[in-house]
C-alpha cells in the first residue's frame, strides 16, 4: 500500500510539538495502510530541523530554498505538491495548526485530491473519523481519490517520541515557479508571554463574559493562571466583547485544546466553546448560574460568584506550593 508523507512544520529552527503529533498520526496511518511513514521539511537553512525530524525514525525529504525562508502558502504548496508527486506518497498528513489549515487544502487542490480536515482517528478499513457541526457529530468519511490529504486534530494523538533507527535525510530540488512566489511575508507580531502556549499547556484557565472587562482578566483571573503555572484562555463571548485578543479563544472557531486540567471561569458553555475543550482530561466549572450548560461537561462544578471564588482559589493554590 502507499506511503504516508508527514509535513513537518517548524518554527525558529525548532520542531513543534504539533509536528510530533502529526508524525504519530502519520505512523498510525502507515501502520494501518501497510505503507511507510516519511516526513518532509520545507524551508531555508533547515538541515538541523531535518536531522531532528529524522530522529523520530522516519525518512526525511528536505526542500531547502530561499523562497521558503518565510512561510507563504503559494510557495510551500507548490513545493509540497511536487514532493508528494515525485516521491509517490499516497497520503499527505499535517497537524491542523494555522499553517496546516492554510497549506493542506491548497496542496490537495493542486493534486486534485480529496481532503479530510481535523481527523481524530484512522480506521483499519481506511475510513477516517472527524468532527462536524462544532463537534456535535462525528463523521466517518472515506477519501476516494488515489492521493489523499489529511489534517489531524492536534489533541487526538499523543506526540511521537524520538527513537528507532534514525531515518535518512534526502534533499529534493524545489522548482518553485515564479507564479507561486507572489505572496510577500511582511511581519509577524508574536504575542509575547511567559505563560505556556495554549495548545501545549497542561493546565488552562479560561474566562468568559462574566469577567465583565479586560481589566478583570488581569486582576482577577491572571493571578490564578500564574499560581497554577497555567495558560490563559477565553470564550468567544469574552473575545467578541474585546476583553482579550482572539488568539486566546478556545472553541470551534478558535483553538482546540485538551489539557490535563481545564478550568472554565464564568463561561456558560456554548456549543461552540465546548467543541474546543471537551476532550480535556479534567474539567472544572466555576459559574454563578447553576443551570449553565458548562456544568454538564464538568467533572467538578462550583456554583459561586467568580469574583469571590477565584481570588480565594488563588490563595488556596498558593498554600499548596
Amino acid at each position: 500500500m502507499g506511503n504516508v508523507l508527514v509535513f513537518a512544520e517548524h518554527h525558529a529552527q525548532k520542531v513543534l510539538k504539533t509536528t510530533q503529533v502529526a508524525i504519530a498520526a502519520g505512523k498510525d496511518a502507515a501502520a494501518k495502510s501497510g505503507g511507510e511513514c516519511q516526513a518532509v521539511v520545507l524551508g531555508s537553512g533547515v538541515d538541523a530541523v531535518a536531522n531532528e525530524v529524522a530522529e523520530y525514525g522516519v525518512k526525511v525529504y528536505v526542500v531547502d530554498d530561499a523562497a521558503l525562508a518565510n512561510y507563504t502558502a503559494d510557495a510551500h504548496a507548490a513545493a509540497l505538491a511536487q514532493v508528494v508527486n515525485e516521491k509517490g506518497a499516497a497520503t499527505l498528513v499535517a497537524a491542523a495548526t494555522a499553517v496546516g489549515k492554510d497549506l493542506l487544502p491548497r496542496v490537495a487542490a493542486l493534486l486534485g485530491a480529496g481532503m479530510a480536515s481535523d481527523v481524530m482517528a484512522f480506521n483499519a478499513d481506511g475510513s477516517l473519523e472527524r468532527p462536524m457541526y462544532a463537534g456535535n457529530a462525528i463523521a466517518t468519511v472515506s477519501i476516494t481519490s488515489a492521493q489523499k490529504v489529511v489534517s489531524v486534530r492536534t489533541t487526538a494523538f499523543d506526540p511521537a517520541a524520538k527513537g528507532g533507527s534514525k531515518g535518512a535525510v534526502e534533499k529534493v530540488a524545489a522548482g518553485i515557479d515564479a507564479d507561486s512566489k507572489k505572496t510577500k511575508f511582511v511581519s509577524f507580531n508574536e504575542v509575547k508571554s511567559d505563560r505556556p502556549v495554549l495548545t501545549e499547556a497542561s493546565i488552562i484557565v479560561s474566562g468568559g463574559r462574566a469577567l465583565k472587562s479586560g481589566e478583570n482578566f488581569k486582576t482577577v483571573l491572571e493571578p490564578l493562571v500564574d499560581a497554577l503555572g497555567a495558560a490563559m484562555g477565553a470564550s468567544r463571548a469574552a473575545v467578541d466583547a474585546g476583553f482579550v485578543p482572539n488568539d486566546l479563544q478556545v472553541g470551534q472557531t478558535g483553538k482546540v485544546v485538551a489539557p490535563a486540567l481545564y478550568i472554565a471561569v464564568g463561561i456558560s458553555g456554548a456549543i461552540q466553546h465546548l467543541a474546543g475543550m471537551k476532550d480535556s482530561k479534567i474539567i472544572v466549572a466555576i459559574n454563578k448560574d447553576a443551570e449553565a450548560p458548562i456544568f454538564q461537561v464538568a467533572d467538578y462544578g462550583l456554583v459561586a460568584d467568580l469574583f469571590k471564588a477565584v481570588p480565594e482559589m488563588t490563595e488556596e493554590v498558593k498554600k499548596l506550593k
Partner: protein
Amino acid sequence: MKILVTVKRVPDPNAAIKVKPDGTGIDTTNLKYVVNPFDEIAVEEALRIKEKGGGAEVVLVSVGDKVASEQLRTGLAMGADRAILVLAPADLDSLGVARIFHKLATDEKADLVLMGKQAIDDDSNQTGQMLAALLGWPQATFASKAESLDSEAEKNSQPGIQLSGGTAKVMREVDGGLETLECPLPAVITVDLRLNTPRYASLPGIMKARKKELKEIAADSLGVDIAPQTKILKLSPPPKRQAGRTVESVQELVQVLHNEAKAI
C-alpha cells in the same frame, strides 16, 4: 473592481444539532438556517471596501439547493449588488465547490474573492485555499485586524483589509500572534471572526434586495468536474462525558483537585 463573496446556507449556530438515529445525517426538523457567520463577515468586508470608494461591484455566489436563495437575499439586503446561485447536489465536497467557484471567478473576471474561513456545518476550512490553488492566485486566510471590535475604526466601518495599487495587505490570525502579508490582486482572502462586526439589513435594504438580480445556474451546465473525492459514510453522536459532581466550596475544590484528581 469586482469582488466575489461566497455565501453558504448553514444551520443556525445557536441551534442544538442532533444526529439522526440511523446516522444518515442530522435531524433538520424545525431547524433554522442562516448565512454562514464567517461569510457574513466576508460580505461586510466587501461592502466596506466598496463604500470606501473605487466603485467596486459586490457579487454574491452560493452553491446548493434552491432554498439557499434566502441567504443570498439576506446578503443582497445588506447591500451586495447581485447574486448567483449554482444549483448542485448535496453530496458535493470542498474541491467540487472550489471548482464551481473557479469557473464563476473566471467568467466574472473577479479581482478579489472574499470568503468565510470555514463553514460551520462541515467545519472543513478548505474551499478558499483550494479555490486559490485552482486559480493560481495568492491566498490570505484568516484575515483579522489589530484593533478590537470596540475601536473607533470599527465604529466608522473601516475595512481591515488594505487594498492599494493592485495589492492587498492582510493581517492574519496565526498560532502565537498576528502575521502581515502582501499579495497582488487577483487574490482569495478568507476572513476570521475579528475582522469586523457585520451590519444588519435595513428595511429599505430588504425592500431593494427583492428587486436585485439573483441568477440561478444548474451546476451541470458549467462543464466542471464536481464528482466528490470524499464521502461521508455515517454520522455518530459525539461520546458523552460522564456526569461530574458539585463541590460546595473553593477549599473542597482545591482539595479534590490536589488529592483526588492529582491535577494540581
